[in-house]
């Protein structure tokens, strides 16, 4: 049976190599192409999440400040979407 087990090991190796090749394809080969697609929100999300300092006038008044935003609504559960201005009728 050891011959079959060795062949099985080779088979597993081939399967995992195919995964590794696919991973390289998506993460390296297609990286720029995917990142620049219009429906890809990740670049925008990153831009919005950039920490920014407050804007302060010369006399020390804060005119703009960053506050922590609520976590983005999960796309899976509708319970996470809150509409505080809408009163239930």
């Amino acid at each position, binding site marked *: *049976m050891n011959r079959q087990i060795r062949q*099985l090991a080779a088979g597993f190796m081939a*399967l995992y190599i*195919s*995964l590794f090749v*696919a*991973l390289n394809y998506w993460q390296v080969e297609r990286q720029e192409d995917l990142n620049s697609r219009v429906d890809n929100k990740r*670049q925008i999300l990153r831009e919005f999440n950039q920490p920014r300092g407050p804007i302060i006038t010369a006399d020390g008044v804060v005119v703009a400040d960053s506050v922590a935003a609520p976590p983005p609504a999960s796309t899976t559960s509708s319970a996470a979407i809150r509409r505080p201005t809408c009163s239930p009728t």
Partner: protein
Amino acid sequence: MARAMNLARRRRSGELTLIIMVALITGGGYMLAALGTNSEIPARIVPFLVALVALLIITHIAVRLLARGADATILPLAAFLHGIGYVMITRIDERLAGLQTTWSFVSVAAFIATLVIVQRATDLARYKWLLFTAGAVLLVLPMVPGIGTTFNTGARIWVQLGPINFQPGEFAKLALAIFFASYLADTKELIAAGTWKLGPIHLPSPRYIAPLLIAWGFSVMVMVGEKDLGSSLLFFTLFIVMLWVATQRIMYLIAGAILFAGAAYIAWRIFGHVQERVDIWLNPWADPLDDGYQIVQALYGLSDGGILGTGLGVGSPNTVPEAQNDFIFASIGEELGLVGAATVLIGFMLLVGAGLRIAMRTENSFEKLLAVGLTTIMGIQAFIIVGGVIKVIPLTGITLPFVSYGGSSLLANYVLLALLIRLSDSSARRLGELPDDPLLGERWSAWRLRRSQRRTYRGVTP
């Protein structure tokens, strides 16, 4: 004998070194993920580290006491995958991480319990018909009205008993692997001989192949009925691989591949949900906001991660639905990049290698086949879900062993791990790498036997 003792001790200290490395990686990852999301070291860091180190050390001591001749890499590899998965789950969903902590403790308890109960792997072979029945019942359980439920996942694979929900299929595959191994070890020559002549073709006698076909047909039928394509694929592969290794006939592998192609084609023609899966696989961008949303977002995550990843806690894996479960590999690829994702793949590869090495080393057919079966379950399951996430094969929902969120899966995989470690230990004993001293259970029965004999000699009726 001194050399033999040293070998076991060297293996265990090698394991301890690897375990410490796993603790450092997991602890560091947990801290980095918290720093990445909240820019502060979490308040729970101390209890977390204490629990992490305690769990790792307890499992290590359990192996040291109960299976000291076992391969040194199996436990650390599983602990590494579990640790990486846990860090990703805490980062994706805090509430689920709490549940996963509980399940981790339960799984380690089950791991130790399995090592205690199964002292000799060959003992399992005696319970093959019991395990056959148990596997069958577990598979059908989710279809029983009242306790079976779908939890909106589309697949009816859950059982709800009071406050506890679990996926019995995870345990059924272990029971069936043990049954297949035991049955094939007894009848492999009879099946391979092909005593039933049908014209020019020699087929195995239906008497010997029937229980296998029933077990396999049953599991596939139930899985198709429960719409759980991933598990159905897993059972099919497990069955074919074990039959092929046991009979040493390539014919079974070829016949299996043809049968599979036929079954896949028929399933594709008949079932709408299969067609949908295949269409999404072929072109997820046909409907990127609805049907293809999950996989398209997973691929965007992977490409955003690139080679080195966005960093733990800095990416946005929550964009992918089920990021903590079926799609955890995409989250790892996003935040830890190609390097981290490849590390996880290599972890699985090494685990498969260790499992097959056990199968090669042992001379006992049952142990050989069981090691092959258990390794195949783990290796194929990881391949099916990772391949589904990165669009190598159509996506079928199934957990990534040790990494994904989910109690049943973690528990079943730790039991599987304990069985592999037990097999590794018994093969080391049989090869004379360490003295095969009597085990706890055997010492106890010997003591009871001595006591009863003493009583008999003294003239006391036992």
